């Protein structure tokens, strides 16, 4: 299927915090939007369509925030779309925005995602407004128990991921958690929240937003000529599966594996571990790094934890994961997926700052949502067609 090449030419995000009490909804998203526009050397006038993503409206109690925010996003008189695929929504937002460019429908599209968790309560919203909410940790803990059992991974793997991502966050000025004295001992001593998940193996609740400017081949080439390297879209895919049926495996969800295979086929990636230089994976609980390394074919089944144990996924390792600090360090839920996609783009643009992976040319980003049933993934590259 032929499509128009698509390039990421602007990335912006807020400083993520527990409570951004200093800004309104509109003020929050506009911080990210204007950083992305400045990065792209564009103004709102250059934007042809806007795609907004966020988690369920119950999180902040504003129904149809895409309508409420249309003027804040400069979308009056322009096409405006809302995306919702639970926790994966930020990634899906980027993919929907890219598809408008790839289809030739709109030349330059602004993807925006946000959450302002301080206005409501995520546990309330995830529990459908009832008592005894499982929360995400309560829903996912059994999946992690199953992974640990079947892989035989030692318990320190979860602690290592928790430390690695928080050390990476110290190199990312936008990251919410800045825990300078993070250590294995500190993670191990933190309270058990949803056995086997400890407090410091869990993501925070954040207010924050992210914005990405996507444009066509001419726009990408023009940015490159101006000395602002774009990230070229190599492959993008969204897949889902029903939440429950006998035989469903949330550790290796079929939707995740189909999603990965689709992206790799589009990008010409046949050996993800060798051909991809780094990945931003959606890891809200530490063990999900190992789970997704395997489900996305970066590690063999049962071996994902070994990449963590031997330091491969550290910033200086052979396959760095979540150099930004990841979801474990910043979790404005709706934006968390788009942050993965934006950080991957910045890596291949050489624009990741202190958490840049030296010489990163191809990067992978994924987000998942709901009961590990929605998946969104893209691969981006410094070159348009690195694998032919």
């Amino acid at each position: 299927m032929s499509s128009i090449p698509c390039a990421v030419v602007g990335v912006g995000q807020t400083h993520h915090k527990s409570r951004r009490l200093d800004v309104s909804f509109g003020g929050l998203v506009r911080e990210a939007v204007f950083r992305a526009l400045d990065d792209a050397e564009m103004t709102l006038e250059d934007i042809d369509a806007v795609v907004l993503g966020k988690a369920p409206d119950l999180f902040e109690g504003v129904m149809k925030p895409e309508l409420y925010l249309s003027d804040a996003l400069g979308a009056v008189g322009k096409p405006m779309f809302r995306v919702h695929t639970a926790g994966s929504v930020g990634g899906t937002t980027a993919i929907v925005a890219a598809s408008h460019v790839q289809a030739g429908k709109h030349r330059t599209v602004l993807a925006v995602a946000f959450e302002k968790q301080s206005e409501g309560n995520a546990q309330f919203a995830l529990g459908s407004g009832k008592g005894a909410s499982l929360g995400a940790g309560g829903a996912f803990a059994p999946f992690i128990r199953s992974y640990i059992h079947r892989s035989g991974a030692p318990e320190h793997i979860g602690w290592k991921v928790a430390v690695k991502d928080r050390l990476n966050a110290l190199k990312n000025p936008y990251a919410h958690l800045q825990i300078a004295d993070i250590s294995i001992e500190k993670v191990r001593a933190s309270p058990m929240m949803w056995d086997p998940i400890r407090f410091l193996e869990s993501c925070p609740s954040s207010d924050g937003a992210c914005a990405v400017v996507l444009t066509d081949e001419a726009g990408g080439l023009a940015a490159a000529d101006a000395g602002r390297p774009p990230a070229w879209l190599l492959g993008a895919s969204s897949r889902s599966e029903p939440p429950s049926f006998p035989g469903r495996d949330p550790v290796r969800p079929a939707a995740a594996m189909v999603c990965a295979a689709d992206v790799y086929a589009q990008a010409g990636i046949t050996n993800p571990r060798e051909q991809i230089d780094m990945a931003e994976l959606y890891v809200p609980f530490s063990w999900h790094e190992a789970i997704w390394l395997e489900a996305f074919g970066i590690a063999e089944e049962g071996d994902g934890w070994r990449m963590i144990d031997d330091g491969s996924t550290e910033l200086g390792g052979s396959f760095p994961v979540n150099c930004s600090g990841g979801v474990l360090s910043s979790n404005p839920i709706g934006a968390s997926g788009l942050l993965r996609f934006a950080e991957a783009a910045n890596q291949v643009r050489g624009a990741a700052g202190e958490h840049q992976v030296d010489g990163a040319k191809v990067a992978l980003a994924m987000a998942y949502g709901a009961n590990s049933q929605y998946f969104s993934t893209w691969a981006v590259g410094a070159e348009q067609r690195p694998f032919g």
Partner: protein
Amino acid sequence: MARLVESTITFPYRRSLGPVVGAFMTALTEMRILGTRSGDAVLVPPMEWDPRTGAELGNDLVEVGPSGTVESWTWVPNPSAQHPLAQPFAFAFIRLDGATTPLLHAVDAGSPNAMSVGARVAPRWRGERVGAITDIVCFVLGESAEIEGTDAGPASEPVTRMDYEASITYRNPVPVSADRVIEASQEHRLLGQKCPVCERVYAGGRGYCPIDAVELGEGHEVDLSDVGTITNFSIVTPVQYPGQTETEPFVRAFVLLDGSDVILSYQPVIELPATDVRVGQRVVAVWASPAEDSDEGGAMGGTYGRLIGWMPNGEPDIDDPDLVNRIF
């Protein structure tokens, strides 16, 4: 016609107002109304950005009103509990003196005959003001502002946040297949449905196979065992939020029913402390007495009528290394 179950979700949200709306709300506590300049225009309420272009505005706030002119209106003859006034009133677009855009608010005019485009109105302020648009109770006809009750004065601190209690009431239809499961539970029977295509069995009255997109009904029903084995579990440390019912860590277990591949996910347990729950444990269904029946459930899936949870049945544990991987 399906039975309808009504449920209400309520939550006390707290908005961050930002610099411009925050200043507007703070001024309301001082019985002043602010707009913002945008070129030659004065926008009321003030905005952080130009609503047409999204361009940043200079936060150039200016006082307007408090009197104004009705530009358009409609009559509300039967106010609901969520309306600003209990008696019939007008919703009106009011262009406050000095503003170029109208403010939407209520006018306590007594009768629609008293309302007209061009009518002059002034605010009736609330005596106890908190920094919300409801600090203006409504507008009244004429040029004279009023105060309802005793004036408690302005806010002592700048207003930066606003409480907003959202409430929504749903009426969900309960599918016939779900009602059949509830009926069976009164006889302590656990019903499932078997897909004729893939032969997977689903507990409860789901009414369809999510794999084959086949409708499942009475003809697909199968009886399921009410004895099973815990395959996996979650111990949830409750986070406190409005509406939370739990204070201590609680268990949700996955139960594989005897003689089937059916797993009931995230099930409550009874007489099984969080410290004792384990994979392989044998459990039996616990059924509520008729007196405990409620109207709840049936809408979000995973309802099994009077099944209230699972308790250990005293049988020895099952030792199967694959059990823990069986979650759905």
